[in-house]
């Protein structure tokens, strides 16, 4: 699928700065708890599981699995972000309970499947690097 000419960009916060800027260094940065070692998302200054404040962003592999998806057909953004495109929830390889809502790119919309292995790719817009996912190298859909 083609990349859109336009995306509504996020309002980057102190908590989310590492997530949105990690792509500048080619890194997907996800908050991790240093007490219980689990990841979580979205980023915030406490672990919701063990309530430790010893949390912060860490680079992960960028590999993930599609847990859920939808083929969007409605032109919410007009011609600037034309349908159809795939919005998905992906589970990180490092911690499948930690998921990202993202867009699946570089893949025909009809080829996306639950269970598909994907890898991160970054789109640079202004001060943010939007982490989208494409079929993982070596996966059946790539």
């Amino acid at each position, binding site marked *: 699928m083609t990349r859109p000419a336009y995306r509504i960009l*996020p309002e980057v916060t102190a908590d989310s700065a590492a997530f949105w800027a990690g792509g500048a260094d080619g890194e997907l940065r996800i908050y991790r708890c240093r007490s219980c070692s689990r990841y979580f998302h979205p980023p915030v200054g406490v672990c919701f599981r063990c309530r430790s404040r010893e949390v912060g962003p860490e680079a992960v592999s960028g590999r993930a699995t599609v847990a859920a998806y939808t083929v969007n057909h409605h032109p919410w953004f007009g011609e600037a972000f034309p349908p159809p495109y795939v919005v998905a*929830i992906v589970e990180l390889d490092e911690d499948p309970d930690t998921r990202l*809502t993202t867009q699946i790119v570089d893949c025909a919309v009809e080829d996306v499947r*639950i269970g598909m292995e994907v890898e991160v790719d970054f789109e640079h817009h202004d001060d943010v690097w*939007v982490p989208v996912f494409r079929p993982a190298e070596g996966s059946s859909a790539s």
Partner: protein
Amino acid sequence: MTFVDDKVVITGIGQSAVGRKLGRGGVDLAIDAALEAIAHAGLDPADIDGVASYPGPVPAEGGFVGATTHDVRDALGLRTTWAISGVETPGQAGTLMDAAAAIATGRATHVLCFRSVFESTAQAAGRAKALTQVASRAAGHTEFRMPFGAASPANWIAMYAQRYMHEFGLTREQLGQIPINGRRNAALNPKAIYRDPMSLDDYLSARLISYPFGLYDCDVPCDGATAVILSSRAAWGGSDHAPIAIEAAGSGLYERHTWDQRSDLTTMAAHDAAHHMWQQTSLTPADVDFAELYDGFSYLCAQWIEALGFCKHGEVGPFLEDTEHYAIGGELPINTHGGQLSAGRLHGYGFLHEACLQLWGEAGERQIRKDVEVAAVGIGGGPEAGCLLLRRDG
């Protein structure tokens, strides 16, 4: 144990005209609903000493906030001892549950609870800006979805639906029975927006919005307001109808407020709210005579069906195939007014209004034929949900 020790009952309901592009404002509609509900309860506006609403004065485009509690207090000159509105609530009826607690603890005696929208008129007037004309960035709960084109609850909920289909084999043909059932019932509801029959072919051939959702899986914006009066059982002087007791109220939210991190993607907050509700009562799902279940998207109604225990987890597909079971003449009629899919997005309160109408035998042509005493009402979707078990006294 009964919710708020059975000290609080529903004593009246009211609803404005409901339609597309009525050309009226949300306060005007709310006043119509409020005055009708107050009179229906056998009360005078001077008796109302509490007001509750959803969502309150939140920033929103396009007629989402029809009227605030201040608007209605001011317009009707109400002298109140308690008022509340809120959007961070367990579903759109969350502040109604708070109103019951306020009455039970003596903060108020008769509370006007309402929800007003004028989305159809507002959107026709061009107030719903194209997303691309919005200059600001995605903040708050949209920060991690909007940049990826996940612009609408249609997208967020479609992903849950797809996962459930993947896990349990639910089909579009089965899911489509929810809007088809609603449309069949809406034919008997003079206030419904869409009343023409809908076939499975009509459903399947409608344009896709966000797969597996097509046009008829998504509810219809409308103009309209609904009001419900809660009263202290001890203080209510009676009317020509018996009061409706609130047997149990489910406000449980057990997980993070999230559209993508819930531990099980095949359940929603509806499951938490229903679990919380059933803990409060000796009644069981088998005691429920009919159900009015939020269908802002068809799949949300499917979630309520299993969350409330009308079928086992994962088995809503086969449940939906037995269409007679939940038709008006069936064992467990569902969405007897047409739901939001056909009767308009009154945003939760429409289900509560319909449940009361049916319990009071005031539903006209669509009145359930058997005697009905217990209703389940599920309101909300995704991470926001609340439910009520209503029981007619006498």
